[in-house]
């Protein structure tokens, strides 16, 4: 996966994205016990273009395709890993700003913090997301005050 991360870091170096962080299942996997998942969700912040109504990721995909990476359904296969780029909304953008800086086999990257991952999972609210949230509480340390503040700010409710 280090090759995949290198390619994503290149997108940032080339200015195709402003910033990014790993989220979704792989983001969760960083903190909790390994579980089966298939794609690498990359939340991205693009250059600010306030007048644009439609967000266009063609520059990113054109660049990746020029390097020989191919589509597989909704994902683009980068060095053997199906990657989905998700343009960050307000919550996710704040998550990216506060993401944990980590290294994977020496390659720098960022992973959303557990509090932001939990908030995103709760907002999505599928059964499998809620299961992950419960595992976060069982298996890792959560800053509950930080989580409460995020949930309050973004009006996310957790109904158990």
């Amino acid at each position, binding site marked *: *996966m280090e090759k995949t991360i290198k390619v994503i870091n290149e997108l940032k170096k080339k200015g195709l994205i402003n910033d990014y962080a790993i989220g979704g299942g792989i983001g969760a996997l960083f903190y909790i016990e*390994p579980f089966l998942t298939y794609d690498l969700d990359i939340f991205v912040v693009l250059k600010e273009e306030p007048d644009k109504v439609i967000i266009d990721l063609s520059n990113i995909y054109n660049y990746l395709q020029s390097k020989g990476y191919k589509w597989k359904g909704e994902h683009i296969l980068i060095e053997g890993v199906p990657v989905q780029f998700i343009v960050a909304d307000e919550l996710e953008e704040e998550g990216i700003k506060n993401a944990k800086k980590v290294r*994977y086999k020496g390659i720098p990257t960022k992973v959303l913090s557990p509090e932001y991952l939990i908030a995103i999972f709760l907002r999505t609210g599928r059964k499998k997301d809620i299961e992950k949230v419960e595992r976060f509480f069982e298996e890792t340390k959560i800053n509950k005050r930080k989580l409460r503040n995020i949930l309050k700010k973004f009006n996310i409710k957790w109904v158990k």
Partner: protein
Amino acid sequence: MGKMSKEIKICINGKVIKREDIFKRKDIFHKEQAKLPFEKKIEILVTLQKIARNVKGKKGIVWKIE
């Protein structure tokens, strides 16, 4: 007093273990797995994907990162 409130002990491979200790050990195991390095977790993930593909057939995706 019902049967469930009694302390149940189980003999496994010559060792006597309290039933509740089995669950405590499982809990500790899951917490330890959560603390594994990211790289190790990705290795486990690929193994899980291979297992899932064997169960599901050719449709399962396995990351080609080795």
